[in-house]
């Protein structure tokens, strides 16, 4: 997956995200969330820009960006697959599901497929333990996974 070329247009977009959150007393988190939503990750130059604009030391901005697991500081695929490996999923064979996914996509956790389509991450509990094992692709959740269902779901994104 290629890194974003941070040009004038990107700065204008970031500017508008900052503007949209100007009513907030402490907008940093919302601004970073807004940027992530548009670009999938937080490019370094953009974080520097945010730091200057909000008048917050860049160390603080990086600190926040790396503290939360939903922020990425490197480019990610078009589809973010978050696979749950927590207790309820674990006891129902989630490690096997992870293995199948890795095999299907031919990547490891934290990696992105060569075509820039999928990134695979292990996530904290998705809160659909009633239909474990589960995963989330961007904002859609899939449950009761097995090998067959994983293939079906992945096919939806091909």
């Amino acid at each position, binding site marked *: 997956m290629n890194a974003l070329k941070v040009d004038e247009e990107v700065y204008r977009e970031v500017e508008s995200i900052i503007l949209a959150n100007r009513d907030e007393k*402490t907008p940093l988190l919302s601004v970073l969330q807004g940027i992530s939503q548009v670009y999938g990750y937080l490019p370094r130059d953009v974080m520097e820009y945010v730091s200057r604009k909000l008048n917050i030391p860049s160390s603080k901005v990086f600190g926040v960006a790396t503290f939360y697991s939903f*922020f990425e500081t490197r480019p990610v695929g078009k589809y973010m697959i978050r696979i749950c490996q927590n207790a309820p999923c674990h006891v129902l064979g989630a490690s096997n599901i992870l293995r199948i996914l890795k095999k299907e996509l031919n990547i490891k956790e934290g990696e992105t497929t060569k075509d820039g389509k999928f990134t695979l991450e292990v996530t904290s*509990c998705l809160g659909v333990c009633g239909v474990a094992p589960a995963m989330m692709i961007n904002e859609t959740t899939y449950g009761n996974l097995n090998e067959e269902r994983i293939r079906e779901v992945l096919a939806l994104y091909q």
Partner: protein
Amino acid sequence: MQFRSKEELETHIQRLKSQSVTTQVLVCIGLGCLAKGAQPVYNRFVEVIEKEKISAVVSQLSENSRHPVVGTGCMGLCEAGPLVRMEPQGILYLRVTPEDVEKIVEKTLKNGEIVEELVYQETHHEEVLKWPLMKDVPFYRKQIKIVLRNCGSIDPENLDDYLRNDGYVALARVLTEMNPDDVIGEILKSGLRGRGGSGFPTGRKWQFARVSKSDKKYIICNGDEGDPGAFMNRSVMEGDPHSVIEGLAIAGYAIGAQEGYVYVRAEYPLAVKRLKKAIQDAREAGFLGQNIFGTPFSFDLKIKEGAGAFVCGEETALMASIEGKRGMPNPRPPFPAHKGLWGKPTVLNNVETLATVPAIILKGANWFRSFGTVSSPGTKTFALSGKIRNTGLVEVPMGITLRELIFDVGGGIQNDREFKAILIGGPSGGCLAKQHLDLTVDYDSLCAAGAIMGSGGLVTLDEDICIVEQAHFFLHFTQSESCGKCVPCREGTKHMLNMLQKIVDGRAKPEDLELLAETADVVKDASLCGLGKTASNPVLTTLRYFKDEYLDHVLNKVCVAHVCQAMKIYRIDSEKCRTCGKCARVCPVKCISGRPKVPYVIDQEQCIKCGSCFEACPFDAVMVDWRSKNHE
């Protein structure tokens, strides 16, 4: 429409109630059912019903604008989703697919008949028992729904649906008939305890914030729900968002706050979407904003989305996160009720706590106390997961026994396996065993057994689960979620994890068990926030109730559940071995020896149980065995 007085609201509700809404198809579009394909089922119902122009439905359509197909929040029995409930009969259909829809419309909607193959059934001694009506299904029989009063029976995105069941009447009553002290008095009298884990009396917390002097105060709803195995709060936010908003407004009035936040974790985009819509609708109806119901009280809400950090569920960390910082906890005191968000007095309450509040105001503290036990009144929602048959969301009166919860409501263990343990309260809770099945579920008796009520996650484990590996698993979770601010939690959990790793790897010595227990105690006593203070619970409770299993791992290198790989034994069957040597070539530690015509053997001392030889052997000559207690 804008409601400017209590009377206007009451008139509107009367009108809603008088409009007969009889024939309905309720399709669960809670996240669990959605994850199993409920959306196409819902779409298909809309399509078929609009095409067929069924008389019972069409006449209803002309009376009011409500569509007969209603997408609802969680109905509870996630295991058997997608779920569909047919009204007025109350028939529950399970595992419904889009292909079933025409049959349901034809039989049930048009002719009032039951589609037999889709109803709940159990086999007892080869006799098949069926329960077509939702209220008769064993899973629902012992449940009492206060928090989940609307969840699964209304459209969460339709304000009128909420109003029809006396929505916002509690708020209207509070603002027009009660002063803040009366409200706090009623909540105190109800004995409501915080459902977020610690069980602190809600009325007392409100009282502290009420007497704090400040120009500004905040009320926050904690919707972070990070405990693995918990999804009760998600279901309420998704399935009945107005109940949370009403609870927040009442709390705001009681403590004197004009601004509130709902903090929702990043993993719950659907909850955020439904809450946003509900807040917008509530504003337009005048339940939020300036001079609510024509009174001097003004109150508004903002949603704050988390960004993925378990520790942000802790109240001081949560406030740091709203303030745009890394979500790290701060020492208490000062307590949030004195110095909270941006230094102002703040109350944080769990989603379930707040959703309970309107019901208490509406029906009274005495009514609430008629459920549950003396010290833990009311009901509690639980998320059943793991190896239990009926996984899903339930609400039961406090004081129910674990046995009733697991076997009557939960339907027992999947595949008729043996119950082994239950993890209650997530990674900060404890593991309880068979001998605890008759324990009652309330704050105090769980605490006495070394576990906690927690937020309500119940992960059931069966005999195929290794307790030691589970403890290792939970500690791995808390260790990686530890924010790193205080040493006991940051370093202590790391050391405990290493020790548990040694045990599951079969490298531990008996004295390691003592060291583990000792370290667990230190982490418990010395950590800054609840994360560290409770991280030891799974270890301490398993050490206490499953000591033999630990000893088996340490002394005999035996894992009775056949989970811990290090306790496997690989052998080569000399009869089957064709001496091709493939196993020896793939062995990463070169511990397999032999030569042509002499069967290969594995040096057990050197073997790292990787299984490479097992996979490589073309003749199935490599056998896997588990060490048992009477092994050499």
